[in-house]
């Protein structure tokens, strides 16, 4: 997907609701997400790595769609025009000691 990096979004200007928490797990606010876009984070993945929103215990289950909407609005795009976030294992948070019990023999389970 092509991403136009030449866009000038202008400076970040605070607006109503910016102190509202969007990512409940990592406590990331609307303002922080909007500011990240002005800092040049144009995709869900970039914002996620920049702010950790969607990287907490729930793995973006709750805020994913909200974050997508905020980034899109800031870029003046439709949410569907954004590069979608990646999906990878594990789908649910899993303790390291459980991964240590990963079945390795061919007979298992």
């Amino acid at each position, binding site marked *: 997907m092509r991403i136009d990096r030449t866009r000038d979004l202008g400076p970040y200007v605070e607006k109503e*609701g910016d102190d*509202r*928490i*969007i990512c*409940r797990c990592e406590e990331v606010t*609307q303002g922080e997400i909007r500011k990240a876009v002005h800092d040049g984070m144009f995709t869900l993945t970039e914002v996620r790595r920049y702010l950790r929103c969607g990287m907490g215990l729930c793995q973006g*289950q*709750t*805020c994913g*769609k*909200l974050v997508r909407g905020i980034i899109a609005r800031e870029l003046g795009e439709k*949410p*569907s025009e954004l590069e*979608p976030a990646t*999906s*990878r*294992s*594990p*789908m*649910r948070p*899993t303790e390291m*000691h*459980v*991964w240590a*019990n*990963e*079945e390795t023999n*061919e007979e*298992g*389970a």
Partner: protein
Amino acid sequence: MKRYDLIIIGAGPSGLSAAIEAAKRKMNVVVFDENARPGGQLFKQIHKFFGSKEHKAKIRGFVIGEQLLKEATDLGVDVELDSTVMGIYPNREIVVRQGDHVNHFKGDSIIVATGAAENMVTFDGWTLPGVIGAGAAQTMMNLHGIKPGNKILMLGSGNVGLVVSYQLLQAGCEVVALVDAAPRVGGYGVHASKVARTGVPFYLSHTIVKADGTDHVTGVTIAEVDSKFQFIPGTEKHFDVDTICLAVGLSPMSQLLKMAGCEMDNSGPAEVPVIDESGATSVPGIYAVGDVAGIEEASSAMIEGRMAGIKVAEYLGFEEAEKGDKEFDKNVAALDGLRQGMFAPRNRGKKIEKTEEGIDISENLLLHGFVADDEIERFPGVTHRAGVHPVMECTQNIPCNPCEDACPKHVIEVGSNITNLPHIVEGNECIDCGMCVASCSGQAIFLINEDTGDGKAEVTMPYEFLPLPTEGQTGKALSREGKPVCDATVVRVRSSKAYDHTNLVTISVPKDMVMKARFFKAV
């Protein structure tokens, strides 16, 4: 690593239905579900389902769940609970967390039936304890017998918001308001009406400004919004509540499909897999059914599951193509039947002005959740005659016809087009058996006797609350809007196994109130 003919992810209505069809064809099937209980959302659905007999209409959701589960396990389907699928890898290998272990399985085919997750909206205070999802409310009251709160505000007038509001009332909670930013009620009018007549006010074109409270919710402020969803200053209304319930839509949980490399459609509000009629994705052997493939009702999900189950069996040679296709086509027809009417997927977001019969839609129903007195008479189910007769306040074309089957005297007819509004068959006599009242999933049928002498009339209504009124009890009759209109005396209370927990309460009211009184409140 264990191998199966078919691995199904999700033991909800679509997953279990797919398992049944595949197991019937002698396939070796496992269903993994991350929850401690199977059935997906079915066990939280305590209302009677819409549809026709073939769609398990008028059976309550949790009973359908029990039936599906029994059918699947009787056929030898292995349903593994507390089993979280962590990922799908090439060649249909999956990794599953079970207890403190991570196990690998391989399927010759995989059906993903992971369902949907709730959407959220944000407002000041939305992270406070006491702000909960509608699904959470259902889990608490219908699975665990815990009241989600005592005074509750519901945000969302889609079927989830309406159905859960009604369930909250059944659980003994007070619903102080039903609020939606949309200008019109989103769900079935009959679901709205059964909430409205108990006295719950509807606030359309309103949304939440903020939740109050320091450690938990103590109140909520709503305000009207304009056509651009901006608050209109000066329209704020405050309610003392301990709980705010959010029912603002669902999104498919499609991440596993994406990880598996299935082609996704990102053009809508949520990512969905690109699938054919049978649920087949772009990756051979991987199918998607139910809400994960697009949000619909549970009745549709069950048929989609059956269709994929048949096709998977064909794909792996467990079913002859010709025989399977015949069965498949029957399900296509059934699914098509469910996708008719005003709430069909193709009508989503559209405002329908007239019924299929050409009658103007009740505007008041869309704006306030109940049909106004001056609108109700224009619908075909509403007629006047001597003696007891059904009045069917069914005003929107929904694919549903249990009332027709329920009447032993064939007084009620829907006809071959299942979305028709029901009407009375002239010449056939109502015997006041009450089966129509109890069978109507929308609780929209009343038995009326317009003149019982002494200037009185009688109204028989469906009643699914406790305590059940008793004969001789006095109170107020409430209008469709839930406002007291007159004194009422309970003259008869009927409960029967055939009514399936819908009790029939008959009240005596002044004659001129017979078309207004639609609920009873003891005083």
